[in-house]
């Protein structure tokens, strides 16, 4: 290489630096472990342990559950929609029943009575003679509610029990779920006597 002036390099330029072997000060290690401990505690308290539903300021799934809005009372609007799509065809949208097709709901002792009976009827159907408001009916009701989810069935039964002047207790999805578990996969329609035997 034919360059002119030599660069005025310091004498140490030829030597590359070396690293000494002084030990890491103990207090730094102690600091590291203290910070690790702080980190673990902080993570435990604030992270919700990787729960994808937990966002700050909530600190755990349990805390999040405490702040859920109340599920509210029976949803009569929803029950009405389900009723008119499923039950009203035979029982009438006004709940008055249709002679030769289905008994009425207004003032019916079956509708207003034991919820355990009321829930079972749509789950498996009702066949054979049954007395409603002093009148005898001998029809066959299919299991119209078997395919409905718990929420919808509870809503429609509550709607029946609290409409057209009926005043009875609401039926909750939890009750429907419990009865469904007891009934299992029964396909044989109930008879009035079988139902009366159930408490």
């Amino acid at each position, binding site marked *: 290489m034919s360059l002119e002036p030599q660069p005025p390099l310091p004498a140490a330029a030829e030597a590359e630096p070396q690293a000494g072997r002084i030990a890491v000060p103990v207090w730094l290690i102690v600091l590291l472990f203290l910070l690790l401990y702080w980190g673990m505690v902080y993570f435990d308290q604030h992270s919700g342990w*990787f729960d*994808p*539903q*937990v*966002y*700050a*300021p*909530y600190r755990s799934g349990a805390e*999040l559950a*405490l*702040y*859920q*809005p*109340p*599920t*509210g009372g029976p*949803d009569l*609007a*929803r029950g009405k929609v389900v009723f008119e799509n499923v039950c009203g065809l035979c029982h009438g949208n006004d709940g008055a029943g249709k002679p030769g097709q289905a008994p009425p709901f207004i003032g019916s002792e079956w509708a207003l009575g034991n919820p355990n009976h009321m829930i079972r009827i749509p789950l498996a159907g009702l066949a054979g003679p049954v007395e409603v408001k002093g009148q005898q009916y001998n029809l066959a009701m299919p299991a119209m509610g078997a395919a409905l989810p718990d929420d919808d069935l509870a809503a429609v039964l509550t709607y029946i029990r609290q409409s057209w002047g009926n005043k009875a207790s609401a039926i909750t999805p939890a009750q429907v779920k419990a009865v469904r578990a007891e009934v299992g996969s029964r396909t044989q329609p109930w008879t009035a006597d079988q139902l009366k035997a159930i408490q």
Partner: protein
Amino acid sequence: MNYGPLVFLAAFFALATSWCGFVLTPQLQIGRLPQAHTVGGAASTYPVARPGLAQQGMEVYRANGCAACHSQQVGQTGTVLEIALTEAGTNQPATIAALLTLAEGSTDHAPALSLLAPVPSAPSNSTNATILAGLPRAFLRSSTREAANAAIKTLDATSAKAQLWIVPVGPDLARGWGERRSVAEDYLFDRTVMPGSQRVGPDLANLGARLPDANWHLRHLYAPRLEVKGSVMPPYRFLFEKRKIKDRQSPEALALPGDLAPGDGYEIVPTQAAQALVAYLTDLHADAPLFNAPMTRPATAEATTSTNAPAAPGTASTNAAPTHAAAP
């Protein structure tokens, strides 16, 4: 000994752990979210996809770097449980008495209830007058769920109807920037998620709820100081065009006051980009109650006309009490 491969392995291991933690796991947890269902009240799916013009507006937002000044993420520092009355009932003095008793902490649970505002006192000889007005309104604040439930039972027994309200609180929410914190579901259908990291300008997460007027936005984009006094936002006049009025003024022309108005015979009309951007801005919402961001929406939401100003004086405007003084 050749330490080269060891160094490489160290780096590989370190980066692999953070890749698993911050790329893989978030993708598994929040990158494949389906639509969520709202909680409380009638269930609806959330979010809904933006209309086409708003999606185009998002591209305008991205191209002009609006995220350099505006954030789109609202925060929340806490949640409070409030007990509200929805119906005053037929025996108001009894209800008032129950409220006062509850507030004095005479329940079995720890004194967790506090009055939000002074309760009007019942005149001694009237039982039918409307003393409890402005319902639905929150009267008590509870710090535990059990105390709240017990209080509601007590109030229900006095023929009034009480409700539990879940109210998120925080400085952002107190400013009216939102009703609850932003969560992953709010960004589900955005092609480019721009949560922003600076608040040179106000947060925009819930802009469509607090400023739904498209014309306000158009005027604000053209001349920010027209709508917000002392604003530092630059004017976006290049999103508009000045053109000669043909037969009559076009319906989209901006109504501008004296010194900003174009000369005689000219009008300022927003371009397609401006229309799209405004459609996007008015479509920004983050106000549905979700499982991971629970809140109770009051019975009827009052349309607010305030802009970036805090809540009007007279309503609670500290960080503690949220602005839920909605009229029925």
